[in-house]
């Protein structure tokens, strides 16, 4: 259950970006994650409101986009999709592969509400 810790890390990043752009609030957060990142999306979603209470991101919509697990074979060079606990080449069956995607945990983008500059007097 490290999802609360992840949410707190997420919110520190979100708040920093929001402050950098003088945003009044955050309306949408897009995360990109892979099954091998170790994050449980539904637990993260449950933890989010607890962590976000009282921050500019309190009402933000949390969107989580899952990346597929893909490996590239060092033996035959083919790139293929794989199961998280079977990272072998779909083409030749060799286990000497490199992970191409599936372990990322990224804050991809934000939508911010930025107040217009007050008109000069």
């Amino acid at each position, binding site marked *: 259950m490290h999802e609360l810790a992840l949410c707190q*890390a997420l919110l520190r990043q979100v708040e920093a970006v929001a402050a950098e752009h003088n945003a009044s609030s955050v309306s949408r957060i897009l995360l990109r994650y892979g099954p091998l990142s170790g994050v449980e999306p539904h637990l993260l979603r449950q933890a989010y409101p607890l962590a976000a209470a009282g921050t500019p991101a309190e009402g933000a919509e949390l969107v989580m*986009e899952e990346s597929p697990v893909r490996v590239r074979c060092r033996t035959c060079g083919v790139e293929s999709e794989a199961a998280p*606990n079977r990272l072998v080449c779909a083409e030749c069956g060799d*286990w000497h592969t490199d*992970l191409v995607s599936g372990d990322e945990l990224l804050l991809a*983008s934000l*939508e*911010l509400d930025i107040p217009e500059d007050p008109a000069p007097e």
Partner: protein
Amino acid sequence: MCDTCGCNITPGNRHLIIGEGKLARTEDGRTAVSVLQGLLSENDHQAAHNREHFDRRGILALNLMSSPGAGKTRLLEATIDALKGELGIAVIEGDLETENDAERVRARGVPAIQIATGSACHLDAHMVHDALHHLPLEGVDIVFIENVGNLVCPASFDLGHHRNVILLSVVEGADKPAKYPVMFRAADLMLITKTDLLPFLDDFEPAAAERHLRALACEAPVLQLSASKGLGMEAWLAWLRGEAAAQRERATRGESLRPNVAPDAHGHDHGHAHHAHP
């Protein structure tokens, strides 16, 4: 509106969210900001700092991970006894509560700091950094970080160590690597522990555990031992001696080493980069 599967990323707003459209405006006048930063980048930066701290002193830092009860502390006790007078050892212990493990280690004559994580199920780089301030590192060659017994959460947090050592005891299932792939694929070394119990178990095959590990594309060596009966300890001690020597050598060259699959805090890996360096 559906907010579980990402289907509300529409053809109309997709380019703002996915593409390079930093600071693009959405249709309803909000500002879309592309960030592309690892969620754990704060932890990873602290981890990189910890690693520099070890590297400056030529110290090898090892992260011991396993289920509760796989024999991490027992292995440490036997290792400290075996290497006494040869390699300097210090220990950071992570548990939810109690000083018990640190006391067991101190009783063997080496410094140990207990981190009581409270309800946290893992150590992170900040906790290790705080512990390092209280740990005397003079004459130390290896720092063992005994993580919280847990096969899930510790895998996600780089601590600033150099190698992941994962223990799998024979009383667990040989298919643990298939059940906990996030943890096991990060192994730099897998130890099959409590092998003195193998004759009493009819369902644990070390070769099967190794096959499950290889299916995670993990090349880590696999060693079998029993710390309490002193079986197979030589290969483990030889691995430690080799790693400690390699770390001293790296340190003199000003180089470092990250554990298997740990993210790169400086963003040279797969798209973790946040901002272009000027």
